[in-house]
């Protein structure tokens, strides 16, 4: 009985979360004639023309590439600086541990809409408007607090004696970080990296504001610009939305196993 209740609960939550996605799927394979009519609830005929249109009518591959570069770059920067900061805070015993963490958190309290204008001016002044670098820097900055927090709590769990041992064995602090601490923190890096990547992959406001042409446009902005003068191509929007979910989906599946493995392998207990 309790078991049944558990499954029912899981089913409800799953249905709630997946319904929009399912509707997108249904929409993406409808024929144009059935797109805006109800009934039928399910398409009477399945078509892939919207998928084809995504690739023929729009610079979709270019947008995908831009999104990959931006999300990948932001992830790399956030992880590099986040790991260094977390290491300094937890293992090198930087002064003002709590104050620094609080300050880091405070910077992420600003809603994006409140800083998009000043940031736009800054990006413009730096000559970075309509470049991928503008988005990479912005996303890395926005996700750095998250990276620092997650990695700090992760590194704190690693025994201090490991860092001491590395130093006595002849490591500089940087060597200890790269050769001993980071390999052991791999599950934390993967988890943090995923969060940063997904944020950057999906971000819309800054991407819309800082980009002007398809040279630097990312997928979310690109899809938002699908609607033409006279019609909204719902089928194409649904198809494109589903397509951009695939890489994130694959990434999460691929690394989720690694996170779990890392946590259960007893890597920390020497």
């Amino acid at each position, binding site marked *: 009985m309790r078991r049944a209740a558990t499954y029912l609960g899981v089913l409800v939550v799953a249905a709630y979360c997946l319904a929009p996605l399912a509707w997108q799927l249904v929409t993406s394979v409808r024929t144009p004639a059935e797109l805006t009519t109800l009934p039928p609830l399910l398409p009477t005929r399945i078509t892939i023309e919207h998928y084809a249109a995504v690739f023929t009518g729009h610079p979709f591959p270019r947008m995908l590439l831009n999104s990959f570069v931006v999300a990948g770059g932001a992830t790399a920067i956030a992880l590099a600086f986040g790991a260094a900061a977390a290491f300094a805070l937890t293992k090198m015993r930087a002064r003002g541990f709590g104050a620094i963490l609080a300050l880091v958190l405070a910077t992420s309290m600003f809603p994006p809409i409140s800083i998009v204008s000043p940031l736009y001016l800054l990006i413009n002044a730096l000559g970075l408007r309509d470049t991928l670098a503008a988005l990479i820097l912005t996303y890395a900055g926005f996700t750095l607090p998250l990276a620092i927090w997650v990695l700090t709590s992760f590194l704190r769990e690693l025994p201090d004696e490991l860092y*001491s*041992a590395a130093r006595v*064995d002849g490591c*500089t602090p940087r060597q200890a970080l790269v050769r001993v601490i980071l390999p*052991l923190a791999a599950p934390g890096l993967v988890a943090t990296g995923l969060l940063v990547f997904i944020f950057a992959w999906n971000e819309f406001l800054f991407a819309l504001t800082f980009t002007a042409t398809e040279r630097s446009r990312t997928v979310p902005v690109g899809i938002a610009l699908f609607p033409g003068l006279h019609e909204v191509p719902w089928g194409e929007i649904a198809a494109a939305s589903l397509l951009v979910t695939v890489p994130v989906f694959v990434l999460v599946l691929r690394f989720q196993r690694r996170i779990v493995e890392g946590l259960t392998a*007893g*890597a920390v207990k*020497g």
Partner: protein
Amino acid sequence: MAAIEFDGVSKRFGQVTVLEDLRLTIEEGEFFTFVGPSGCGKSTTLSLIAGLERPTSGRIRFDGEPVDHLAPRDRDVAMVFQSYALYPHMSVAENIGFPLKLRGAAPREIDDAVAEVARRLGIETLLARRPRELSGGQRQRVALGRALVRRPRVFLLDEPLSNLDARLRLEMRAELKRLHGEYGITTVYVTHDQEEAMALSDRVAVLNAGRVEQCGPPLELYHAPANTFVAGFVGSPPMNFLDARLVPDLELPRDVALDEVVVGVRPTDVRVTEASDDPRALDARVLLAEPTGDDVWVVGLLEGERIVGRALPSAVPVPGGIARFAFARERLHLFDRASGRRIA
């Protein structure tokens, strides 16, 4: 190899003084042990030698050269940690070879050195394994190997045997002594186990609350403890302390009053029988008897104070009854009641 000199070294963490004005010299090639209860500052002392901590004041010298400005990696010191602190993501061979790799040794050289150390420690067959696949004793050996592989000037051991079971501990203790004899490296050992300290060391420093209570060869500490702390800490079971007024025929130095004195006598020196013809034996009620094989330790209650002595297994006094506790007058230690210092 190096001699290590502490010149008035103090260490404070915030308001807490962990080490107070430490002054002593550890000789080249010596096996030196810091022993004391937890929180006495012994592990901090090791961290100071390794350079993991800096003294708040005072200086540390290796062979007369100040090392306070040197990072751990520049001190040529190796350390075995209580938890062993093996690198979980490296194989045994990589763990042992890591210090050499960091020093830029050639791969061939590293392989040879690792093989040599592994042979000496009897862990040749484990080289490909990961630390988590090893038993406690095997991890201990790997940690030793990682420390010994580069033949450091100073070898530091922080409670290395405390995570092993009793039998393995005895085995590793002998192993440590053998390795010290073989390599001859100045070794600084930290433990809370006085028996370990006695068995291994050339000299022992007893630490209490950040101060050295006494420093000397193990037998000196045992036979001539400088104060009641050392007397009570060294030796097992610990020394009995009795009010001097309970002990008949006590010879005191002149100008020392009876009520200023505490008498110490080791349980091994107290003979317990049900009927003794020694007229100076003390009568005490027997609380319990603990057989250990060759001996039986008998705990008695004497005027509200505990006294422990030794009985023959063939003549164990019955708990609840009265037994006679006898000891020779020349086996007594006298301490000043107020200061705890040794009188005679």
